[in-house]
């Protein structure tokens, strides 16, 4: 039920805000995992916007902030792969 609400609300937000679907992250291993993890709460343009100036530690801190401060529904075991992708394609 809860996830249905998320889908509905996400759909509304997509419809209300112009052209978010154009934002696609760089192709590479774990891109889909990263997009899936980020997209429930925000558009993925936050990633290129914050690049390339974070090192691996910086991206790790950012992902952990999303989980710990904002309650992002990301599995702990997915964090290393997400950080790998972000620091490889959007890191310094």
């Amino acid at each position, binding site marked *: 039920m809860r996830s249905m609400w*998320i889908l509905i609300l996400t759909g509304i*937000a997509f419809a209300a805000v*112009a052209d978010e679907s154009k934002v696609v992250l760089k192709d590479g291993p774990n891109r889909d995992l990263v997009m899936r993890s980020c997209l429930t709460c925000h*558009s993925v343009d*936050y990633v*290129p916007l*914050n690049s390339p100036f974070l090192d691996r530690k910086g991206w790790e801190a950012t992902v952990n902030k999303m989980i710990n*401060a*904002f309650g*992002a529904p990301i599995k702990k075991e997915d964090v290393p792969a997400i950080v790998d992708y972000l620091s490889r394609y959007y890191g310094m």
Partner: protein
Amino acid sequence: MPSRREFLTQGAIGAALLSLPRLSAAADALKLQPSELPPGALESAVLEALPGKAALIKRTFRPPNFETPLEYFNDVITPNRVFFVRYHLMNIPQVNERSWTLKVGGDAAGATAEFSLSSLLAGFEQVEIVAVCQCSGNRRGMFVPHVPGVEWGVGAMGNARWRGVRLRDVLNAVGVNKDAVEVAFDGADSAVHDKTPDFMKSLPIWRALDESTLIAFEMNGEPLPHWNGFPARLVVPGWTGTYWVKQLTSIDVRSQPLKSFWMNPAYRIPRGRFALVDRFTSQETDVSTPITEMVVNSLVTNIAPGQRFDAKQWLDVKGIAWDGGYGITRVEVSTDDGATWRSATLGQDLGRFSFRQWTYRFAPAQRGRYTVMVRATNRLGATQTFELIHNPAGYHHNVVQKIPVEAV
């Protein structure tokens, strides 16, 4: 052979053409972003219009963070359709003004009350104030080294004529107990996950009771745009935009400080680093304090870096200055790398919380490359910094601009 005076007069139109911006919107708005922004921020910026707004510089789509292009700051009042948009959470409901209500209460309130828009308009004196709303993180993208966040250029701000009722009058109508320390505010926006902290902010009681703090319904003579807080938002002149809660739904008069992610650890500055006046003591810790009033700042609005102009004529430099509500008293321009400073001419005074326009005519003695530097000073004697005061969240960037130009 015309005298220099005649030449200047005859040359006025030509000089105007040379020195005025030809910012035909689109491409130029993106080109005029500060070059200091992270490369990824420059690349991912596009001009997009949210429903009911004009095209702005998109930083993020969802939640929507859209910046006002530089050209619009050539006007002292920022039009509603180009006023910047900043949200933290992605559920932003369309609020129906007929069914909208504002709940006022709390453990330090004398009573609990619920107001409709019409009861607020009919029950309290309506006042107007021109005030700058600036995001705490405006110019974050220009931090060296960069810090994560929304990588704003110079346009996460705007100046509007706000109309509404005084928060003080509404609070006094329900009663404020002697033990009140803070007043907390919630808006209609919400997160998708229940673990994401709802966006709630508080003000110290003295600031909530200040006569300039408003519950505003109108901006520049029109209802607030949806993206700027329709039907009612808090207006806290002098203080950064984080306190200007949009789509206001409830007001909570508290005997205890608000515990909210958005009060701590968010929106904090290190203690003792900035020369600010307003303190928010109930939220202070040993190391940090909530951001409060804006620092003194200025912006050149009509010239682009590298701009060329006729050395036999002049360059009209134009811009705005603002501060945390004490009022701009002086704007100075240097064209010799800071060796000498000359006063710019201040424009109309729209009140101490407003942008203050200024103009300066730079007539160089000879051809060459020059750097235009501008610094503003307020009534307290506070001015801008030459060296960035770095802080982890990227707030209060008011470094003196240095814009290279060339007299040819």
